[in-house]
């Protein structure tokens, strides 16, 4: 009955809007019309639910909606605003009659969100609703989905820790593969003559570093045979970076900051050094990681961290695909006691 009252009020007091809505929807031919009668009834039901109409007021509740005190027939006005909202949202969602419940869900969310801001008057409520169009709701939902991925519960953290070493192994493989492909380095001489090039690469069995001078920048892969010198990996004692490198300590060496960040050296035979200046940060990270890996040490470059992040987060997402929308317990549930008999009967497959 209340719904009919509301519809009547709407038709009488907001005639223009009423006429518009009814005409709009009755002339649509493509099954996308919003059913006025059904929506009014459902909407009235929903509003009563939201406002807890008919329930006893709670003693402890201090929530008041100021806007209901501003108008004599505030509930009916509230209804009018909401029915127009429903119509608007229906159009925005391009809904058909089968999607009725989904539209109601969206409208409910819109109303709830607008109400939590406690508007002081019905007009304010109306303007708040205008900001909560369907596209807004979609954006809000999307950001919630993104946040959903911020998994923090214990079982998930345990899984993360378990997978981490496997991913680290992948990163190590990648770094060593890159070393095997080799890189062209520049020799920076103090005499500002034409820069010379030299090339260094790891042998496929990871046991020897081949290197040698080159006349000009290479176009493709440089085969091992053309590189004159070798350094067995087993002889490498340490990897040194930055300002501790011998070629950075020399006077007259170009001490620009950029070069300092890209410099690294390999110490072998207790006092011999092979000095490198990487062409860019990426190569620097790859080489220092790779050399550390060969020495059995941890890979510590920035790229390792970001690669680990990328790979690990994707791996976690893939593993948890089947648990979409399922509540994951914070702590492991208790394990029941053993079953009293182990005579299992069903044994297919």
């Amino acid at each position, binding site marked *: 009955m209340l719904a009919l009252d509301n519809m009547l009020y709407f038709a009488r007091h907001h005639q223009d809007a009423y006429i518009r809505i009814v005409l709009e929807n009755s002339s649509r031919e493509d099954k996308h019309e919003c059913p006025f009668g059904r929506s009014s009834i459902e909407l009235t039901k929903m509003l009563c639910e939201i406002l807890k109409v008919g329930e006893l007021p709670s003693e402890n509740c201090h929530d008041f909606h100021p806007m209901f005190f501003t108008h004599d027939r505030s509930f009916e006005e509230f209804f009018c605003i909401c029915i127009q909202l429903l119509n608007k949202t229906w159009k925005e*969602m*391009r*809904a*058909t009659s*089968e*999607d009725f419940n*989904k*539209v109601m*869900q*969206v409208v409910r969310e819109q109303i709830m969100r607008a109400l939590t801001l406690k508007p002081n008057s019905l007009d304010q409520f109306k303007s708040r609703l205008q900001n909560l169009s369907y596209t807004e709701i979609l954006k809000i*939902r*999307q950001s919630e*989905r993104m946040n*959903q991925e911020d998994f923090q519960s214990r*079982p*998930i953290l*345990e*899984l993360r820790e*378990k997978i981490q070493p496997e991913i680290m192994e*992948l990163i190590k*493989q*990648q770094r060593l*593969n*890159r070393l095997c*492909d080799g890189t062209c380095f520049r020799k920076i001489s103090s005499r500002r003559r034409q820069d010379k090039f030299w090339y260094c690469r790891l042998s496929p069995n990871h046991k020897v570093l081949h290197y040698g001078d080159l006349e000009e920048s290479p176009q493709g892969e440089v085969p091992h045979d053309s590189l004159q010198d070798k350094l067995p990996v087993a002889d490498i004692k340490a990897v040194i970076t930055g300002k501790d490198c011998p070629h950075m300590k020399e006077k007259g060496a170009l001490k620009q900051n950029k070069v300092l960040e890209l410099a690294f050296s390999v110490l072998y035979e207790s006092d011999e050094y092979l000095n490198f200046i990487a062409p860019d940060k990426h190569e620097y990270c790859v080489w220092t990681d790779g050399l550390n890996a060969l020495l059995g040490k941890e890979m510590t470059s920035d790229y390792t961290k970001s*690669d680990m992040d*990328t*790979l690990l987060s*994707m*791996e976690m*997402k*893939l*593993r*948890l*695909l*089947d*648990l*979409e*929308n*399922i*509540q*994951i*317990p914070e702590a*492991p*549930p*208790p*394990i*029941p006691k*053993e*079953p*009293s*008999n*182990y*005579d*299992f*009967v*069903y*044994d*297919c*497959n």
Partner: protein
Amino acid sequence: MSEEPLAPGTKQPGIMSRLLPHRQVRCRAGVICNFRSSTCQALVLEIGETVQILEKSEGWYRGFSTKKPSIKGIFPVSYVHLKKSTVTNRGLCETVVPLEDPIITETTSTLQEWGVLWKQLYVKHKVDLFHKLRHVMNELIDLRRQLIQGHLAQDQTREIKRHITVRLDWGNEHLGLDLVPRKEFEMVDQDQISISELHKLHISSRHCGQQSTTQGDSTRQRHGDGCRVPVSHHLFINLKSFTYNSISEDADVFFSLYDTREAKQISEKFMVKLNKNGGPKNPEKVDRLCALFTDLSSKDLKRDLYIVAHVIRTGRMLLNDSKKGPPHVQYRRPYGCAVLAMSDVFHTITDLKEEKDFVLKVYTCNNENEWHQIQENIIRKSNTKYSAPSTNYGKYDVYTDLGPHV
């Protein structure tokens, strides 16, 4: 202990000591917490794994992980979350399939397949594809999530499915995986549709896939409602009897469809092996010498089609050779041919499911040089080139039972 399957809720007869029945539960479930316990026969489970459950008892399920189906064990009820599933083909070869939109299932399995390849791309340092694929995978995970949450109206759901299929096809193509034929965005079951329809689907999906990679996201519908479903016709042939008189040799009869205008065979050959008495060589095949010529299009039916039966006998070199002789020396020799015009078939068969008997007369070649075109000669009735087999050798009739099936 007997291993019969137990109906749910019943106790196994004859064993009075069992107090609690094992309830049969056939379901898939997702593991929601890592499980490791020293309880006897307990499985080790990781969060996110999928398990299949066989039965339940006292707060424990018994089943196996889909990663290692041969190892069965128990795990607590509280550690898994059941998914609604359907069981098909109950019994030894049953499959338990989760009840969800097939696009979601396809997306899940494709993403997991790609995950493995994506890591390999990383190791091989294929940077460009690695980053693009990562982007696409994240997009797919989000789209899939939207579908699962189910808040969207129908129009939008369709849009999301279209988007998902475009991305899935992009990824499959760039990773060198098979292209999935689709109908209404869902993967087509190969056992349910005909070959020609499958071929058409492949072509149209390929075409749409290329469109969208060159033009960006085009709004072209892959399978609009106006798509014509190809109608295929099928022809069912059953060889009822082959009357053979005195030749007493094994024979093979080859049936095929022949287009006389283009002078070529348009179908494969259906071979029937007959013994000396004209019955099937394989005794189990009595009354079952039948074949189905499938996927004839309407265009095919308009051709000048003939059913041609070639008979090849195995035995002596020439029919009038002496019957006595080294028995192990067997030759495959052309014997004769019979034809039946499809137009005759169509005139007599009015109802599409009707079956009718036809008698085909077998004619032999006058001159063996003409064997390769004996069917043409019979069709054109060039009488000099063939003849009914001489009365010395009896009459040879081929009875067939034909029916066009659509």
